[in-house]
C-alpha cells in the first residue's frame, strides 16, 4: 500500500521553527498504523525570506496528500493564500488548519477559506492522530473526531470539544525522537503547558487553564540532547510562567544545571516578576537563565483591572532590581492600545519602565487575538480592531485611533533610543 504523504507546514519569523508540528508528528507516529502507512514531514518556511510561491513550488514537487498548517496571526495570510493555490492546482489535496489563529474561530475560518477542509480546535496532538486514522480509512467518519470543524454537504459541522491531554508524558519529545533538530538560539523546550492567570489579551490562560507538566526526567533528557550539540549556545523555554511554583523551580534549576552539557544559556524566559525573591533569582542563575521577559504591559490601575492582569508595583519593581543585581538581563513589555489606557497613560507606563532601567523595553501594539477575552468581549471597552490577522487594535473608548497611531510612532523612537546597543 502506498504511504499517505503528509506535510506539516509553518511559516515562521526570524529563522525559528515550529515546535507544535514536531509534537504532532511524533505523537501521531506512536500509532503503529500511522507509522507504517503514513509519511509525515515537517516543512518550515521563513515568513520573511520565503514567499508563498516558493512553498507552492516545493509542494508541487512533493505532492502530499494532506497538508497541515500551523496558524498564527503573523502567518495566516500566507497560509490562506497557499491553501487557495494548492486547492486550485490539486483539488484532491486535504488541507487541515490548526493553531491559535484558527482554533477559537473554526466556522469563521472555514467560511472565509473555501480551500480549507478541516480546522482543528484546541490542543492538536490527539485530534491530529485521529484525523490521520480517518484519512487511513480506519475511522468511518469525521463526526466521531472531537475537536474539529469540517465541511459536510456544503455545511460546516463542528464536533464536540476535546478535553486537554491530562498527562503530557504521553507526548514524546520531538527532539529525542528525531522530528526536530536543535539549532542555536531558536530551539524551544516546554516544561509545562497552560497558565493560571487570565489576562484578557492572552490566548493561553483562557484556552489552556491550569498547569500541566511534562515529566521532569524527559525535560532532563531534552536538555542533555540539545546541549550536546556544540553549536547550541542558547535555547528557550516557552512556558507561560517559568517560576510559578518554587519547589518545582528548585527541581528544574537542578535539572537545568546538571543536564546542561555545554553551558548553553536560557534566553527570554517568561517570569512572574512579582513573585521573585533572592532565592528565585539564584535558582534562575543556577538554571543558567541569561535573560527574562516580563510584563507589566501597563502600569495604570484602571487598565490593569480591565485586562485582568496581576501587577503589584512594589513587588514588580523589586523583582526587576533583584534580577538586574543577579546579572540577568530583563526585557519588560508594554502594550499600546489597551482598554483604559490613552496616549499619556501609555507614556506614563513607558517612563515608569525607563526609571526601572531594565535591559530592554519592548513595545508592541495590541493584537486582539481570537480566543482571548478581549476578542470575545471587547465591546465592553468599545474595542475596534481589524478582524483580519494580525488583528491590530484601531481604537477603544479611552484611546482614540489618532492617539494610538501617535503612540506607535513615539514608541518606535523610544525603543530605538532606549535599546540602542549599550
Amino acid at each position, binding site marked *: 500500500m502506498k504511504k499517505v504523504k503528509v506535510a506539516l507546514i509553518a511559516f515562521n519569523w526570524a529563522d525559528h521553527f515550529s515546535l507544535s508540528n514536531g509534537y504532532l508528528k511524533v505523537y501521531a507516529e506512536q500509532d503503529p498504523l500511522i507509522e507504517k502507512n503514513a509519511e509525515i514531514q515537517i516543512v518550515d518556511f521563513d515568513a520573511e525570506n520565503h514567499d508563498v510561491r516558493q512553498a507552492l513550488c516545493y509542494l508541487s514537487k512533493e505532492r502530499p496528500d494532506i497538508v497541515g498548517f500551523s496558524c498564527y496571526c503573523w502567518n495566516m495570510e500566507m497560509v490562506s493564500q497557499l491553501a487557495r493555490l494548492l486547492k486550485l492546482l490539486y483539488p484532491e489535496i486535504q488541507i487541515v488548519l490548526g493553531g491559535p489563529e484558527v482554533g477559537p474561530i473554526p466556522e469563521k475560518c472555514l467560511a472565509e477559506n473555501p480551500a480549507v477542509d478541516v480546522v482543528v480546535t484546541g490542543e492538536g496532538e490527539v485530534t491530529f492522530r485521529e484525523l490521520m486514522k480517518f484519512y487511513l480509512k480506519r475511522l468511518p467518519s469525521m463526526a466521531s473526531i472531537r475537536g474539529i470543524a469540517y465541511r459536510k454537504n456544503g455545511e460546516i459541522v463542528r464536533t464536540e470539544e476535546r478535553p486537554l491531554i491530562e498527562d503530557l508524558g504521553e507526548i514524546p519529545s520531538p527532539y529525542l525522537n528525531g522530528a526536530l533538530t536543535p539549532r542555536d538560539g531558536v530551539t524551544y523546550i516546554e516544561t509545562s503547558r497552560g497558565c493560571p492567570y487570565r489576562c484578557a489579551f492572552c490566548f493561553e490562560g483562557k484556552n489552556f487553564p491550569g498547569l500541566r507538566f511534562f515529566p521532569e526526567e524527559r525535560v532532563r533528557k531534552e536538555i542533555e540532547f540539545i546541549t550536546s550539540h556544540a553549536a547550541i549556545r542558547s535555547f528557550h523555554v516557552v512556558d507561560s510562567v517559568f517560576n510559578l511554583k518554587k519547589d518545582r523551580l528548585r527541581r528544574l534549576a537542578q535539572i537545568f544545571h546538571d543536564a546542561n552539557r555545554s553551558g548553553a544559556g536560557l534566553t527570554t524566559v517568561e517570569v512572574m516578576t512579582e513573585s521573585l525573591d533572592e532565592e528565585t533569582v539564584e535558582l534562575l542563575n543556577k538554571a543558567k537563565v541569561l535573560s527574562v521577559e516580563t510584563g507589566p504591559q501597563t502600569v495604570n490601575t484602571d487598565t490593569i483591572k480591565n485586562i485582568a492582569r496581576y501587577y503589584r508595583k512594589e513587588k514588580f519593581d523589586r523583582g526587576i532590581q533583584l534580577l538586574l543585581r543577579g546579572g540577568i538581563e530583563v526585557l519588560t513589555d508594554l502594550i499600546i492600545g489597551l482598554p483604559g489606557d490613552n*496616549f499619556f497613560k501609555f507614556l506614563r507606563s513607558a517612563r515608569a519602565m525607563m526609571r526601572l532601567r531594565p535591559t530592554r523595553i519592548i513595545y508592541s501594539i495590541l493584537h486582539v487575538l481570537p480566543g482571548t477575552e478581549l476578542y470575545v468581549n471587547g465591546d465592553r471597552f468599545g474595542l475596534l480592531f481589524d478582524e483580519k490577522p494580525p488583528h491590530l487594535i484601531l481604537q477603544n473608548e479611552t484611546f482614540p485611533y489618532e492617539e494610538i497611531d501617535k503612540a506607535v510612532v513615539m514608541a518606535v523612537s523610544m525603543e530605538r*533610543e532606549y535599546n540602542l546597543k549599550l
Partner: protein
Amino acid sequence: MILYKRIDVGRGCNNNCLCCPVSQEGGTPSLSDITAQMNGNRRFDSVAFFGGEPTSRPDFFDMLHAARQAGYKRIKILTNARAFADINVAAKTIQAGCYFFEIKVHHHEPAIHDAVTRVRGSWDQTVQGIENLRRIDMLDDEPFHAFLHLRIPLSRENYRDVGNVALSFVPYEIDRITLSLDDSAMRLAEVLPHVRNAINAAILNRVWITTRNIPLCAMTGFEHHVEEIYSSAEGTFEKSKLCKQCVYDEFCPGISPSYLDRFGFRDLKPVSQSRHAEDIRRLRNEES
C-alpha cells in the same frame, strides 16, 4: 524620551548662528570640571553634552571616554555634526561609545542654512556628517544604527518652511525631530500653523516629533508633542497672571522673556478644560 544629565561644555562653536540661544557669557569648563559634574548627582544613567559645539573641544574624545568611565550607559551630544563630515571622526566618536546625536539643522536649502549659521559651507558639512553617521552600520561585528535626532530651531528664516525642512531629512532614517522656538522675533500666531503642519507631516512619515519652548496653551490638540511634559525646560521662562487659570499652569514652562518683551501675552489664552490635564499632571509629578 530618556532623561539625560545635561552638561554644558562651553561656548566654543564652529558656527555663528543668528539668534543662538546660548548665552555668550561663561567660560569653558575643564575636563576635570566636567568629570566632576558627571560623577556628581547619579540620578541619571545617560548624559548629554551641549554647548557651544562639543566636538570643537580639543579634548572631545577624552570627554567621551570620561563619560564611559563614569558609567553612563548613553552618551548624547548636541551638535551641528560638521565634524562628522570627516568619516574618521564619525567612526572614532561612535567607537568611543557616543551613539546619540541631536543635530541642529536650520533649513533644507544650503544658502539659507549657511545664512543662519553665518558659515559658508556649513550645510554641506552638516549633511555629510549626517550621511557619515548613518553610513556606520556595523559596530563590533553587529548591526548598528546611531540615534539621530534632528533639532530644528525655529527662526524667522525657516518657520514657514519647517515642514519641508523636517521632511527633507526623513530619508536619513531620522529617529526623532524636535522643533524648538529659539527666536523671539515671530508671533506664535504666525508660527503655530507651520508647526502643526510639520507635526502632521512627520507623523505621516512615521517620525516622532516634539516641540520645545512653546507653551502648552498654544499646543492644544498637539499636547502629545510637547517635550516639557516629561522633561524640564531648558531656559528661563515667564508666565502671566492669567496662566493661573490654565489647566496646564503647573507643568507648563511658560514663554521666554524676550518673546514677552516683543509681543506680550496676546497669543496665549488659558486653557479652561482638557481631557489630558489630569494624565499629564500625574506623569509630570512622577518625573519630579
